[in-house]
């Protein structure tokens, strides 16, 4: 347990510090965030053709409501937490890489849902938008990370884990 906590904390701090570097923000984080905005808009447009995306901004052309996807809203921090947890847990390199790839995709699917839901919540009620954006969605994204990590542990634990967990929890 102490080994896990130590490796987790060091990896988390190192990756988070790396993410905050200007050069990493310019070369990786901001282009990725722009891609998320484009992806979100491309998922909305088939259902709502009054939506346009420009850079990190998604705008509704009818009511001019727009959201800008900023650092902290791109799921990268959640991915860093997952990477740190997976890296800290003993497994083969392939198992770790697989967990990180699958986990990153799961986080980003959830994040796209967050962006789209916030885009429409903001057009409906700004107070609820702010509350959901700042307090509720960060928790839901982190729960996504927790569930992915628990499923990963179950996978590592072998095929008998379902029975064992059910028996233990009974």
């Amino acid at each position, binding site marked *: *347990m*102490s*080994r*896990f*906590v130590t490796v987790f904390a060091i990896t*988390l*701090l190192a990756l*988070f*510090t790396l993410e*905050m570097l200007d050069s990493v923000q310019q070369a990786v984080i901001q282009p990725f965030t722009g891609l998320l905005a484009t992806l979100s808009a491309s998922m909305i447009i088939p259902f709502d053709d009054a939506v346009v995306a420009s850079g990190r901004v998604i705008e509704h052309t009818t009511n001019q409501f727009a959201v800008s996807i900023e650092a*902290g809203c791109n799921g990268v*921090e*959640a991915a860093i*937490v997952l990477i740190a947890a997976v890296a800290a*847990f*003993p*497994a083969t390199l392939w198992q770790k890489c697989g967990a990180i790839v699958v986990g990153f995709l799961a986080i980003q699917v959830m994040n796209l849902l967050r962006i789209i839901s916030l885009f429409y919540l903001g057009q409906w009620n700004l107070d609820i938008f702010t*509350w959901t954006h*700042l*307090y*509720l969605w*960060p*928790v839901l*994204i*982190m*729960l996504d990370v*927790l*569930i992915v990590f*628990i*499923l990963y*542990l*179950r996978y*590592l*634990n*072998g095929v008998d*884990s*379902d029975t*064992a*967990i*059910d028996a*233990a*929890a*009974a």
Partner: protein
Amino acid sequence: MNTALTRFVAKLFALLAVTFALWHVTASVLAAPVALATAAVLQWWLPGLVEQAYLEGTNFLVITSIGEVDGQMMSAVAAGNQLQLSNETRLLSYSVPFYAALHFATPMENSIERFTRALIVLWLLMIVGLMALVLKDMMLTFGEVMFSRGTLLPPPAAIALTYQFSVLIVPTVAPLLLWAYTAKATPLLNVLLAAANKNGEVDDTPPPVNTD
């Protein structure tokens, strides 16, 4: 997902609705001990910058001894005005309803006592976070004046990093880690952590002591 995990997740989501609703109406009470402690530390640490600090609703207000005239920062006495900084404590305190939902979704012995201990840890982390919020605001508002009037201030990069870490990582990760630690002896966590032993990790934590 197996039935135990499904039950846990369903219970967790139901509790999240309850704990967040409770937090929404009690956020200022939850932030009060944090605000009191942070105000005391700031006034002791930075007497040349902080004149007064207190909680108003869920906003932590800092009345500074700096004023502004035509964009120039100077002492409040010379400027004839005082700049005030305001920070929303809910940016940090939503870790409490998150932890509460995780905690009460996991059956364990001495639940209330363990929850109280975890709450104290969350409060300590919130004090650090609130100080980071205030220092970041001061740095952006006062610039060099802050560093000339303050003592033992960390470098700007450290303030920025601590602020980002306190707002983006701590409120969601600290509850998860505290929950994993608090619930480590529960059946569900024990089985999940068995994967660690199977893969070479050694669980070196002592078993929990029943204080009943």
